[in-house]
């Protein structure tokens, strides 16, 4: 059995190093940091776990954030190499925003796993069809439901 303890320790450490410090580019917020405070003119990144073998994907959902407060600058997807394994590893999907003017807005992200959303990366997030019950809003980590919303509150100073 391959011990992934080192990787498990490295992740929180790197999160500590990057989150909120802004030393190496935009401030980065992990999935459990859903309150964002930034100065106008700064960029920040929402970094989200997205394992390709689990069919995990994230989308910016409606209602979109107030364009006078924040604007989406770009998005990226990186895998965590699984070393030739099957179904392990993981990946990260990230959305980078620029803070425009002081104010408060919400960024609504839709998380999907096991390929339950069928949309393209960066496409508008799918909404529940009339026959479906509304997707729940997550309070914890992703994965409790196949489809769930994550609400971020952004305050631009």
């Amino acid at each position: 059995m391959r011990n992934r303890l080192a990787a498990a320790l490295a992740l929180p450490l790197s999160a500590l190093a990057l989150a909120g410090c802004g030393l190496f580019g935009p401030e980065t917020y992990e999935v459990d940091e859903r309150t964002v405070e930034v100065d106008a003119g700064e960029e920040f990144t929402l970094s989200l776990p997205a394992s390709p073998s689990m069919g995990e994907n994230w989308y910016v959902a409606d209602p979109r954030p107030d364009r006078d407060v924040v604007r989406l600058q770009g998005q990226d997807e990186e895998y965590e190499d699984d070393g030739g394994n099957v179904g392990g590893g993981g990946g990260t999907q990230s959305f980078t925003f620029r803070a425009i003017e002081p104010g408060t807005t919400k960024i609504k992200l839709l998380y999907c796993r096991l390929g339950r959303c069928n949309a393209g990366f960066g496409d508008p997030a799918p909404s529940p069809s009339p026959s479906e019950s509304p997707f729940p809003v997550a309070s914890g980590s992703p994965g409790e439901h196949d489809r769930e919303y994550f609400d971020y509150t952004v305050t631009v100073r």
Partner: protein
Amino acid sequence: MPAAGESTTDRREKLAGHHRAIAGAGDKNTLIEAIRNALDVSAPVGSPSTLDDIAKRYAKQAEAARDVQDRVEQIALKGLPDAWVGSTGAKAQEVVSAAARSAGQMDQAIRGARRALILLSDALTTAQSEDKGGREQLREALGMLGGEDGFFDDMVEKDAEEAERLRARSIASAGAKTMHAAAEKADDAAREAARDLNKFAAEARAGRMKTDNISAADRLVLADTGVAGGPAEMNELLTANDLERSGKAMERMNARDQAEFERMLAESKSPQERAYLVKALAAGYDLNEVSEFRDKIHGKDPAWLQRHLTPVTTAGDSMNNEGLNPDGSSVNKDDQAFQGERWSQDGNTCVPSTVVTGRAMVDPVYALELTGGPSGQEDDPAAFRERLGNEQLRVHEEGDGDDAYDFPFGSTPDGMDNDGKTTVANKEISPHTGSEYEFQETRSADARRDVLPDIEKAVAEGKPVPIGVEGKDANGDRVGHSMMIVGQEGDMLQVYNPWGTTTWVSEDDFVNGRMGQASDKDLPDAYAVHLPAE
């Protein structure tokens, strides 16, 4: 001399290489050697006239099968008494309907085989003719070049000599290209014919059950029984392998067990119940175990039986091409679910989840444990989900899967290597199909093309084929995933994804790295398969 035992795929690969070598040859001796290498590859093997003769005989046999079908259908139309005619309780009407369908399938199979042979014959004639033309060009080029240069000859090349060499290279390159195109035609045609003939052979199903313990009428009905919830011809309850294995198991029974099994079959309340008992026997269970299983399913309606015992069903419209979603997946996907709860992975357990579903497809006793619980009578999707998740974890441990440690305590599954996948496929699926799995890498289009006939044969007989798919991000970091080929029709493969769905992809897509249709754009390449041995 041509190498002995060259396959059509070998020829195709070799000629592709020799064509490149000829086109890139920078001096006379290299060019001569490359031309000789191309000429050493054998011409397309086979006799079109023999194939045509067989096809003609098939045409006559198809007429006879059609006549049988017409006559049996007449009997079916006239109506039959509600009498039991088989030793295991098959009704007269069921037997006649099965016989009519069987004769119809035979007619189609013979006509299909005839068509496959004619197409192969035509393709072979064309390929042999083109190959001959290509060879003539190569020989012409060799004649222009003359003998190989000696050491001193090679030091200076006059303008006229160079022009002649380049002209010879151009002719040889065209010849090798023609030979390669002919090899591609012969290879594609041979594979297509093999695929169709294998499928037709597997569909001659009733004959696979070689036992005298039950009547021919009963065997016919068993082979014809479909799972509820989809078209019968796409959802045959007993696979060719099931029929063969159950026939052998019946032959091994003593007289008392034979009588007991026949009684169970005769008391079945539906053809499906009867066929599931045979499937349990085919999965390797002894009579006591089959008897316990029978007590749990006796008298259940066909929809209950399908839901509890057959994880994957094929919808009639599942092969329609409805295009792609923006994420690269096929629009036309079917959820495979028990009471709305999908047969899907809970965590990073795609390998165990693939194998658990694979076993449930071939082993109805195991499927019932997962769906119906210890009593076999439960119909609760939440309890099914819990049992399925626990079973995926058990198989994850069995395959010595990797774990990610959750800080500060605990761990969750984090994938499995291909050795582990081989181990769990052999421990979970093989005992119930009789075929051990072997791992085979398929990291090129040629390798995937080469393995297709083995995949087609395996799934036509009812043995699922686990596969590995992979993709890379912009930095070259790689992720892998596990899926399974569970069906084949024409040039299409039905793929189970442990995300809880099945999707049809074309063989061309399988070969050329477009497997994202069965998952999404992140996982395009089928890099490996686990093939069941003969």
